[in-house]
């Protein structure tokens, strides 16, 4: 808050997580400025998803602190962090399979407004119902509103996940490999949606598709072996020798790191 015009939406200070002998996230210190689309990249096993898990409270950190919009959220329970305004998607797509698409969005929109009424009908909650309609339109899912979520195609489930993340009206959206496993058409559609969203919500995304990352990200953070290797604009990252060596230029290294982590 001292020099910067705006305080960072997310500030991470010395965050560390060990899994037995492996240090998955090793003293990561980072700041995400508001109003920009951030991408976190790095080889498999670099600690990207673990970093998301620590931020969202899904795993307890061993050391370090996390501040969201100036408020400390270190080691808070996931549902509390979610209610403060951080939404996330999961790498393995996960929705409420037996609920309809509309109900998936409805319960997400309603979750922080209170779900304890056992008698009032869900259809009578105007705010949440309108939110559902808006999100359905925004993501072109209206035609699928009554379908059971578990019966959707992979690409539509991914869209629904993003829809749920928006329905929660977050200030910060964490997307974990949003286009993983998508066809080129689905990828293009999803990338467009993410760009639109970035106009109003701060987004941090993990992605393996370099083409997509360099196309949409304002800032890129490169992680390797649990630590930050580099931070900067796509241009700076593309020009960074360390990044080239560790990751971009020598794809066989990716396999090497992967093997080292799995071992």
């Amino acid at each position, binding site marked *: 808050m001292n020099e910067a015009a705006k305080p960072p939406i997310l500030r991470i200070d010395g965050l560390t997580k060990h899994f037995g002998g492996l240090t998955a996230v090793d003293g990561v210190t980072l700041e995400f400025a508001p109003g920009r689309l951030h991408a976190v990249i790095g080889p498999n096993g670099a600690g990207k998803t673990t970093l998301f898990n620590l931020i969202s409270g899904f795993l307890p950190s061993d050391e370090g602190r996390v501040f969201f919009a100036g408020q400390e959220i270190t080691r808070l329970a996931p549902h509390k962090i979610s209610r403060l305004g951080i939404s996330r998607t999961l790498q393995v797509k996960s929705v409420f399979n037996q609920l309809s698409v509309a109900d998936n969005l409805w319960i997400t929109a309603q979750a922080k407004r209170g779900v304890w009424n056992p008698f009032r009908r*869900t259809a009578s909650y105007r705010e949440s119902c309108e939110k559902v309609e808006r999100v359905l339109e925004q993501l072109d899912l209206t035609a699928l509103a009554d379908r059971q979520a578990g019966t959707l195609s992979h690409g539509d489930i991914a869209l629904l996940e993003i829809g749920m993340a928006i329905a929660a009206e977050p200030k910060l959206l964490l997307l974990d490999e949003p286009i993983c496993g998508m066809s080129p058409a689905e990828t293009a559609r999803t990338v467009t949606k993410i760009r639109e969203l970035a106009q109003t919500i701060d987004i941090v995304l993990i992605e393996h598709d370099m083409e997509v990352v360099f196309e949409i990200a304002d800032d890129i953070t490169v992680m390797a072996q649990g630590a930050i290797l580099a931070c900067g604009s796509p241009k700076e990252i593309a020009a960074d020798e360390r990044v080239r060596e560790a990751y971009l230029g020598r794809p066989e290294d990716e396999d090497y790191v992967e093997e080292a982590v799995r071992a």
Partner: protein
Amino acid sequence: MLIVSAVFLVAVPWLVPAVADRFWVNVMAEILIWSLLASSVNLLFGYVGLLSFGQALFFGFGMYGVAIGVEKLGLGFWPALGLGVAAPVAMAFVAGIFAVRLTWHYFAIITVVFSLIFYFLALTLKPLTGGDDGISFTLPPAFRFGGAEFGFASETFQYLFILATVALCLYAMRRLLASPLGKAFMAIRDNDVRASLIGLNVYWLRLAAFVMAGFLAGLSGALFAFFGRYASASYMFYHVSGEAVVWTIVGGAGTLLGPLVGTSLFILVREVVSTHWQHHALIVGAVAILIVIYAPRGMVGLWRDLLERWSGGEK
């Protein structure tokens, strides 16, 4: 279909004696009572994703609440019924505090452990529970109008009272399933990780469901105590819980009427076959296995699939 069934259920006390032995009215009453226990399994397993093998504990607390209320405390019908519901609800809250921290087989195991502990406790605490013999009691009347008394002494009143109670519970459950709380339960059933990520407090919601299920099982036990005029620890054994789970799964877990359908099937089979053949449990087992393999959504699910196929064929 539903309306026909409803009319039939209300007409049972007059219809059944006309065509068969009066004894079948009581069989129907028993089916309704046990279907509430199955509904309590269904609420937890079918809508929150928690498989409990310990609902008989709350059924037993309901029975003892009524029996102790009437016999030891000298309570009337309504206060005893109140005690028969309050005791299991309180127990469910206490047991739930520990149990809903766990899921899947760990949850199933802890529910069995809880019911075993109290089963053996009930056997030992003879002065309070009557031990092996249980407690028999004299039935208090439910209503008095002038000189006339109405109560479970009349089989017709008994049946209609039970029917009304079960119908009310199923209606309340139907409302619940269309409410925010119901949707939250189902969200947790489908994906508890995602549920916590969207801001639902999974622990408290599961505890609420556990207490509600304790209410249903307890009410079922309280009705059964009035129905049989006694309470016994044997109904707290996990065998009883297991039967309720089988009824629910065969009838259709996650459907409102599945538990009633499953309970009807098994109790009717038991009543019809057991007079001719000792090993009716074999039929029960065979049906359960076939349903689990070929109709994972139970008989109600099977019925819905058939309806869909028929209506699809007409187009």
